[in-house]
């Protein structure tokens, strides 16, 4: 542990908060259809889009109509992406967009990949530079990076409107929320962000791969491509699907310590800002501050644990007599699978940033973390995207937990529970309960299937049968269920002997189970969240009094944190024991 390390962490938290506050206010205006400083430039294109797609953006939708639009849109996106990926070397695709002439990946892997990008997961069984054409990357995957993020933001905004709704059942208009997210939020930040990344050395080209002669006399292929434009949305949309297989550890994706910090800010900026948007839209900013405090507290705990654990090294490393103390020229700690240019703090922080959100980008190998350090991303995933969470997803997830906390806490102050003045009754509890249940259910069942079946065991290596193999399987499904996309490596769904997919095949069990888990754990909670919004929308509002439980003070923050930890811990404690905890408690190397 170094001063610079701690300083990075503190600086990051401060900058994030400072940027998220104004962005949250800006977004509140965007979703209340108020004028913002970009309106003069963007109002024209916005109207044009509505006209082209024949959308009446002023038409309010109830939760069912909203959900229907969302599902139809996502299904269409799914089909289109599947088509693009399966035809990447078809005759009508210009050679310039597939200069290496890559074939398509098999159907099962494509099913997984398409489900992965449409659900904002970006779980990648494939490696981008040996599988995907530039066309697939730019117009297939990157487009879904934009759209899937926008869909989730729309859900979050619709839920806020449901909570706020004073009359009627309208949650707003899905198409308007979608278009506004893309034009007013994602586009401006992406343009700026891509320029910053390019300035730091992130590449953006359509070249064929370079061949370089190394000093050892061998030749090496250096993959090229339009990286910056995909990189920025990969972070900003908490997608996480790297252009290259090694993701943000690759120097063309994340070249410097500065880009590392910048990319982490891109990941968290919208999830953090949306919390403030919630405060603004509910007319009480303190509501936003309260949730933000709970998220930030949990986030910082995760960062501290990961940083300390990684700086300390594992019992196995100590047993093997490896140096983990700081010595001149090295910060010490567990540097296995980490990039020197990021160091322990930059890696631990990045790891926590991308696992509390649904980003899942990595700049270091999570499977090489120490037992306890590796338990951190799993614990983060166990919180079901309530610690900032994915773009949009984070807010609607934690709001369901807030609902639960309000219900339990509300009883304890002697009133039937009410949330921002709305009584919580059987219907809301049922929907929120189911919404919260989906992710753990999907993760646990899929892991059980995978660890108990031959089909599942085929995805883990012979070496990894013990706790490491369990961690890999568990992490794979936990990550896919949380639409995260980061991996504990080792878990395979695609066997690719040659670049370009000739002779490759997918592992059908892992591909289909994973794809199914991603779709289920994405769209079921969305539907429950929208249904909760619908149930709340028409409710009468009771003005708050002295006897009303407040949801904007420190007591509630503590309660909310307790509920998140308790639900996550009680659900995943046994699984965590058998994976990372075993490894953290033994000097035995698995």
């Amino acid at each position, binding site marked *: 542990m170094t001063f610079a390390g701690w300083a990075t962490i503190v600086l990051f938290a401060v900058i994030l908060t400072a940027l998220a506050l104004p962005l949250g206010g800006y977004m509140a205006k965007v979703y209340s259809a108020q004028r913002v400083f970009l309106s003069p430039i963007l109002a024209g294109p916005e109207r044009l889009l509505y006209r082209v797609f024949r959308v009446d953006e002023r038409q309010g939708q109830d939760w069912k109509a909203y959900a229907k639009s969302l599902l139809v849109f996502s299904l269409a996106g799914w089909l289109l992406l599947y088509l693009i990926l399966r035809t990447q070397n078809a005759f009508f695709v210009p050679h310039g967009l597939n200069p290496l002439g890559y074939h398509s990946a098999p159907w099962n892997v494509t099913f997984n990949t398409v489900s992965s990008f449409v659900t904002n997961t970006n779980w990648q069984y494939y490696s981008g530079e040996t599988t995907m054409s530039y066309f697939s990357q730019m117009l297939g995957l990157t487009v879904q990076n934009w759209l899937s993020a926008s869909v989730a933001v729309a859900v979050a905004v619709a839920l806020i409107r449901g909570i706020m709704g004073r009359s009627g059942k309208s949650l707003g208009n899905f198409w308007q929320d979608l278009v506004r997210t893309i034009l007013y939020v994602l586009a401006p930040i992406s343009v700026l962000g891509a320029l910053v990344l390019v300035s730091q050395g992130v590449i953006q080209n359509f070249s064929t791969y370079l061949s370089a002669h190394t000093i050892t006399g061998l030749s090496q292929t250096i993959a090229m491509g339009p990286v910056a434009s995909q990189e920025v949305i990969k972070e900003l949309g908490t997608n996480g699907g790297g252009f290259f297989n090694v993701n943000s550890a690759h120097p063309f994706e994340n070249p410097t310590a500065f880009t590392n910090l910048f990319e982490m800010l891109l990941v968290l900026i919208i999830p953090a800002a949306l919390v403030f948007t919630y405060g603004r839209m509910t007319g009480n900013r303190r509501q936003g501050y309260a949730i933000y405090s709970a998220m930030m507290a949990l986030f910082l705990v995760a960062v501290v644990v990961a940083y300390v654990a990684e700086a300390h090294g594992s019992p196995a490393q100590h047993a093997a007599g490896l140096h983990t103390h700081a010595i001149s020229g090295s910060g010490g700690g567990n540097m296995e699978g980490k990039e020197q240019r990021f160091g322990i703090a930059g890696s631990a922080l990045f790891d926590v940033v991308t696992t509390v959100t649904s980003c899942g980008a990595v700049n270091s190998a999570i499977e090489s973390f120490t037992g306890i350090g590796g338990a951190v991303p799993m614990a983060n995933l166990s919180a079901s995207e309530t610690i900032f969470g994915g773009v949009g997803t984070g807010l609607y997830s934690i709001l369901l937990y807030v609902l*639960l906390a309000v*219900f*339990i*806490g509300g*009883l*304890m*102050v*002697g*009133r*039937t*529970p009410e949330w921002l*003045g709305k009584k*919580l*009754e*059987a219907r809301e*509890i*049922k929907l929120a309960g*189911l919404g919260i*249940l989906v992710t*753990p*259910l999907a993760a*646990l*069942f899929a*892991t*059980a299937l995978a*660890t*108990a079946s031959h089909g599942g065991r085929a995805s883990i290596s012979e070496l990894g049968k013990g706790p490491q*193999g*369990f961690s890999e*399987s568990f992490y794979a499904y936990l990550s896919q269920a949380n639409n995260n996309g980061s991996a504990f490596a080792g878990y395979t769904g695609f066997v690719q002997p040659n670049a370009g997919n000739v002779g490759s095949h997918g592992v059908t069990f892992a591909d289909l189970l994973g794809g199914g888990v991603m779709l289920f754990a994405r769209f079921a909670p969305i539907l429950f969240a929208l249904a909760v919004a619908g149930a709340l929308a028409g409710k009468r*509002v*009771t*003005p708050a*009094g*002295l*006897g*009303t*439980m*407040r949801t904007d*003070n420190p*007591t*509630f923050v*503590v*309660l909310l944190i*307790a509920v998140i930890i*308790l*639900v996550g*811990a*009680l*659900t995943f*404690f*046994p*699984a965590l*024991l*058998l994976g990372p*905890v*075993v490894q953290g*408690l*033994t000097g*035995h190397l698995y």
Partner: protein
Amino acid sequence: MSSQIPHAHERQAISLFQGEIVRRALIDSIKKLDPRVQIRNPVMFVVELSSLITTITWLIQAFGGKPLGGGSEPAWYTFLIAVWLWLTVIFANMAEAFAEGRGRAQADTLRAMRKETVATMRDGSTRAAAELSRGDVVVVAAGELIPGDGTVIEGIATVDESAITGESAPVIRESGGDRSAVTGGTRVTSDRILVEITQEPGQSFLERMISLVEGAERRKTPNEVALNILLAALTLIFMIVVVTLRPFGLFAGTSISETTLIALLVALIPTTIGALLSAIGIAGMDRLVRRNVLALSGRAVEASGDIDVLLLDKTGTITIGNRLASELVPMPGVAESELAEVAQLASLADETPEGRSIVVLAKQYGIREHDMGTLQAEFVPFTAQTRMSGVDIDGRRLRKGAGDAIVELVRGEGGSPPPELQVVLDRIGNEGGTPLAVARDSQVLGVVYLKDTVKEGMKARFDQLRAMGIRTVMVTGDNRLTAAKIAEEAGVDDFLAEATPERKLALIREHQEDGRLVAMTGDGTNDAPALAQADVGVAMNTGTQAAREAGNMVDLDSNPTKLIEIVEVGKQLLITRGALSTFSIANDVAKYFAILPAVFISTYAASPGGKGPLHVLNIMGLGTPRSAIISAIIFNAIVIPMLIPIALKGVGYRPIGASALLRRNLLIYGLGGIIAPFIGIKLIDLIVHNLLGG
């Protein structure tokens, strides 16, 4: 003048451990094992199924078979788990049975009065009381039981209602007005009245009361339903956790027996709150009954915890209700004693509280009480036309009455009222009092100042309500000026002056449209619409039948300040639910630390049969894996009977503001719920481990 707020008459709490109740509760808790009863409570149904499966496993083992689902647990272990699982269900049933038992004991007392009475009809014929229906008119004379609920349509009588109210002093029931309702089963102690029956056979107030306290008509309240759903969702999550744990264990080379998995499941699902939930609801109703309030639905009890606005009638609730003479203001040239004497004489025959208070006040001026009989005076009663009353003695006319009426009278007699009179009248009116002018023939002697007095201690009560977050609104027929003065004196938040039933109803609607829950009390027929509109409408038992039917609670003591206690009971009920839910869920942490290290003690052990890395999680230092699991299950079971007293008594409510209350309960039941089982399981393990002999 002041008077104490009548302290709520509280029925003797029926002891929890009365022999009869205990015996019946024990029998009932076995009877309730019927799966058709259990299915209504998803959590306990899961426990019952678990007990059944474990018992079958034990039977198979007892006959030499292998346990279901593999594993190598000995039969005694399976047997012990099965026994404690059954006990968990039985303890849960016992909690409910105890709660019902107390109500039932009260119901029995009531039932004893439901004797077969014979009703005498108006035409002299007789009919069994059970055959009476709405609209029949019966005659009840002194010493007879009133055969059914009804309204007095003729006559006045004293009625002993102690059977339902517990109050031994007889009350007056008379036709017309707001004291016309009579209850079946009560006894007329004097005079004779004609009663029109207002109930259908079998639906008397008494019968409704019996079924209410017995809990026969108990339906789940909305909040109870919501909480049940939450508990079911938690149960579902833990079922998934337990079901998937088996393959996870096998992957790590550890086979977990089905009995152990079931033990883990039962330990994790919220059995504590699941077991006590219905007892808490029944006990809430029971607590109201003991305060002599009958809630006609559990929903109303719940709603009373949510009350935002309390409408209180000024008269009788906030003030003593009678305007009492407090000061004599003589006109210039009139001696105070002269005024006192005339005022007294003019009031001698006046049996209203106002009149009597003038006599009492006059005594302080040294005026001896006169006797009407010896004075040969002729009483002139008050009428709405004259707006004055008085006596004629020796040809002199002594009058007291409204200022303008007296002025008119004096002018008619040829006199002229002194200019000071109007000044005094205005002053008293502005101060919220009522002036009564006193005149002798054509001379105005002075003014009696009648004051409405606020009951002692009301201000403190309103402060208490304010701390609970409840606004108090005083409702009065007085003019704004008077109302404002009394409102200020009493410390209410707001007032409605010149109230009519329509304005009262409109005020309730207005508050409800703003999203507030409104409670009110009322007794008159003209209160009925407002009582029906209010979220919690408490009808006074002395009130009319219409009022009693419109409200959703009846206060047998007819004490309007009872609302405050009703609100407290409602809040207590909700807090108890929340607190025990929190406690139940918080308990799981310790149970994990008891059971999981036991299950995985040798997982990934360096040598076969040795201890694996996870044994260090046995932070409680429990004896053996089996004693650990058994201890967790025993704790899980006995925590239920240990919490029955809290469930029945309710967690205390303090008006300290929501945030402080939440902090307090989170500390006690949340943090306490995490810590308590660590201690409990350890202690139980010390015993179990020693008994099992290692």
